[in-house]
């Protein structure tokens, strides 16, 4: 049986690849010991061997494998583990006397670990052979990192790889709604110990809950956009579908709510009504300011070029909203026409006296006139359709480190127009998930979960006034558009976040995509010129494995 533990002989191609990998290992500035931590329980011996072998075949040499058997009754797991332990000194094994659950078993395995970093591997999953090498490279590039995670895919029962999950870079907002970080997860061991390891109260979602607690201690979190983990989709596992494990949505919401309490956010998490394994945020009724008081702190600024949409927008602002905003300012080239459309609504009309109307200049003028703590920029193409829109948008714009939030922008036919915007050099701004049913999950919850994004549109944007002023408002060299995307880049350059809030939904009658097409190409070039380096580096919240065009989360 010992022969089974031997590596297969290398082919010529394998030897060439091995030389390349050897050179990559040689190039590492440091080689921290990585402890791969694995809880096991009644695992199919074949799958267990495959999981262990996937570690033993790592090209990165400085690893150890720490396995805790969670009191498997049949003895077959013990037979496999004993054999590996006896033949490979890098493998450590501990046996729990009784079954204590996955968190306790993971913690027991964690106690065996001596590495500077720990990587988590489930007992039937697999690592590709370069997984730890890529992690070590990331750690070598930035030794300050505390946590590294990667993309992943699934292994079917037949061993076929499927369902790649191409994740965004660290998005604390997305992490509240979807268990997106998942595997491969590598954490500095001292940090894992500081947070107390895994909590048995959250078995089934223990790694998600662990990640939330770790994120409260560090933001030195790095994403590797490579598939470095194969997740076995066997019946009963979350990999086969989150609905396979009962009680998961409630546990997930409980974990997020506890996390929000710990970080001082006045919100609770609730399972999504139709897609319960996605959590959505709602104002905490015990902690949130009175809705009327909140509404009073908001100044709505509408830069109005002309057109009938203004009447529809104002009617929805005052007719649909649970509480009307504190003030509404319309900056218009044709002030009498704006006043006429405003009718009886309490709207302040400011005349834009410049020869050529500029949306950025008009919006800045409106902001200068506004007195609210919050500014809501919206276009006359927007229509509010949900009464609670302001509380939900405000909640997301108030998340720690966040400056601005935008809603799900949908078309009148219920299709998504934009769920945030992705930026890139060759396609400077693309609406995300355009054309997708607005009630759908999107790509791994990208539609129903709030996410950090690179840009949102001034079709409907709530921004903290202080952040708007810190970013010096809209750049007025933009004549017809892009000033909103530019503002988002400046906010991000200041270290402030921009969030797609998922809720509420706002209907836009003139679509942002159509508007983008109609814009002066000089404004598009201006955006590229000002943000060239950032665009060339790629959108951190839109995985590079996706096709850039149309930002539809389709691998390209």
């Amino acid at each position, binding site marked *: 049986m010992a022969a089974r533990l031997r590596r297969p002989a290398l082919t010529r191609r394998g030897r060439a690849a091995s030389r390349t990998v050897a*050179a990559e290992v*040689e*190039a*590492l*500035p440091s080689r921290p010991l990585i402890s791969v931590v694995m809880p096991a329980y009644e695992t199919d011996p074949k799958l267990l061997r495959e999981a262990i072998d996937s570690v033993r075949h790592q090209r990165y040499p400085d690893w150890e494998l720490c396995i805790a058997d969670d009191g498997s009754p049949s003895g077959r797991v013990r037979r496999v583990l004993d054999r590996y332990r006896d033949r490979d000194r890098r493998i450590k094994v501990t046996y729990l006397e009784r079954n204590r659950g996955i968190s306790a078993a993971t913690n027991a395995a964690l106690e065996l670990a001596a590495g500077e970093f720990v990587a988590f591997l489930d007992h039937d999953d697999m690592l590709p052979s370069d997984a730890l090498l890529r992690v070590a490279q990331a750690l070598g590039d930035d030794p300050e990192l505390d946590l590294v995670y990667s993309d992943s895919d699934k292994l079917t029962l037949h061993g076929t790889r499927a369902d790649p999950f191409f994740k965004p870079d660290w998005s604390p907002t997305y992490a509240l709604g979807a268990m997106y970080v998942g595997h491969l997860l590598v954490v500095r061991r001292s940090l894992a110990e500081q947070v107390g390891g895994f909590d048995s109260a959250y078995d089934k979602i223990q790694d998600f809950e662990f990640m939330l607690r770790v994120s409260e201690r560090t933001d030195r979190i790095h994403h590797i956009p490579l598939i470095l983990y194969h997740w076995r989709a066997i019946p009963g596992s979350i990999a086969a579908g989150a609905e396979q494990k009962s009680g998961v949505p409630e546990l997930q919401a409980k974990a997020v709510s506890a996390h929000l309490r710990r970080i001082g956010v006045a919100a609770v998490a609730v399972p999504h009504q139709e897609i319960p394994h996605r959590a959505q945020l709602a104002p905490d009724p015990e902690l949130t300011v009175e809705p009327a008081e909140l509404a009073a702190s908001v100044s709505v600024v509408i830069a109005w070029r002309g057109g009938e949409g203004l009447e529809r927008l104002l009617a929805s602002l005052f007719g649909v909203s649970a509480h009307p905003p504190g003030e509404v300012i319309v900056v218009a080239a044709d002030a009498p026409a704006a006043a006429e459309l405003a009718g009886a609504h309490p709207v302040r009309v400011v005349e834009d006296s410049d020869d050529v109307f500029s949306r950025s200049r008009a919006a800045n003028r409106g902001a200068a006139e506004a007195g609210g703590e919050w500014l809501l920029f919206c276009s006359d193409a927007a229509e509010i359709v949900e009464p609670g829109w302001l509380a939900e948008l405000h909640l997301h714009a108030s998340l720690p480190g966040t400056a601005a939030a935008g809603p799900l922008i949908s078309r009148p036919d219920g299709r998504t127009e934009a769920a945030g915007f992705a930026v890139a*050099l*060759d*396609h*400077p701004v693309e609406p995300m998930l355009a054309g997708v049913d607005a009630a759908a999950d999107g790509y791994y919850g990208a539609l129903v979960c709030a996410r950090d994004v690179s840009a949102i549109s001034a079709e409907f944007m709530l921004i903290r006034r202080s952040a708007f002023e810190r970013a010096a408002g809209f750049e007025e*060299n933009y*004549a017809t558009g892009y000033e909103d995307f530019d503002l988002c880049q400046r906010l991000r350059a200041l270290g402030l976040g921009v969030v797609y809030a998922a809720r509420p939904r706002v209907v836009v009658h003139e679509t942002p995509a159509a508007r983008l097409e109609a814009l*002066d*190409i*000089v404004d*598009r*070039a*201006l955006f*590229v*010129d*000002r943000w*060239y380096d950032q665009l*060339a580096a790629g959108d951190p919240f839109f995985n590079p494995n996706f096709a850039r065009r149309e930002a539809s989360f389709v691998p390209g």
Partner: protein
Amino acid sequence: MTAAATAAPEALQPMRLVIVYFGPFNVNSAIQAFHFAGDLTAAGWTVTLAGVGDPGMIREVGEPSFECVNHHDLPQVLERCRQAPEPTIVFAWTPRENVRVATEDFTRRLGCPYVIHLEDNEWHLYGEAVGRPIEEVRRLSIAEQDRITPPALIHPTRSEAFMANAAGITVITEELNEFNRAGLPHHVARPGIDPERFRPDLEPPLSRAALGIGADEFVLVYHGTVHYANQHEMLSLYLAVKLLQRRGRKVRLIRLGETDPGGVDPRSLGALRDRVVELGSVGWREIPGFLALADAFVQPGAPDDFNRYRLPSKLPEFLAMGRPVVLPDCNIGHDLEHRREALLLERGDGIEIAARLEQLIDDRELRDRLAAGARSFALAQLNWKDNSIALGHFLNRISRAHSGDHQSAPLTASPAR
């Protein structure tokens, strides 16, 4: 610049100079090598310029008064040097690998010193070309570095000893001396300009009207290829012109050279070009005439790690043409006085370039002052002969210091193998 480089009390001592140049004979910096070689030859030096490819290509630059050979012919040059001993110095034009190999072989066999010339941030260029930071590649085995390093780039590790063992360093701009980590004697070997070829009163080969440009339009001329490395800078220039046109300013850009759009948003770049007068490639000798069409020149770009360490070859030409010049506040920009000799850019983006051009358009007195200041600077600081002689003095001193260090070994002695 070192004190040794600025003071030149002694007469220039003719000696033998072998310039090992990294590339073909007809590219921009070969023009600089051509001038240095020609001026020192006129001063009595024996100069050989060794490059890559056909030495006859030098005639695109001018008729050489010195010897031009391919790197492969250096053994014959070496043999001649051995047969007619005289003080010899090798001038390695960049520390790139093909130059290093040829220089080390030649100097080891002849026992003469070498000086390395830096004209770019070679370490940055390596990372751009190979796609990996040079520090990362340096951690690989030497054999692996040899395998992945092309001869037209520096070798991550071998270049270190090459730099450290040089007798001196010359730099095209002072910032490059940051890479002189061994603290070797250094000299700013600034290029020059032919003030007769590039002068303010040249007649353009064709009128503005022939190009469809109105007499009241403010004209910029830019010559040079648009390629991947400079496409952002060119986007900024095009954009500045468009922003001004959108504000109602009558501004036009004339472009000479090819356009090879790479990764930049093609719609942006394409749309910005629609009112640019694109004349395509123009012969090297015709360029001054086309530059005479300009009211001002702009060298776009940010004072970043790329631009800090280079001196675009067109800048001396812009300055010598006696027109206002807008350029980044780095490299030669550090030596130009803002608002007297040039307008300097802090960011170099389209908005800032447009703002600088508006200043020029609105202020006739500023334009006149900058035009005169640019020409004066070019005449005083960018004189080929003066700069060549200054380089010769530096090389004299390096050679004397070397012979002092090696009194027991004749300069032309065959070294042990």
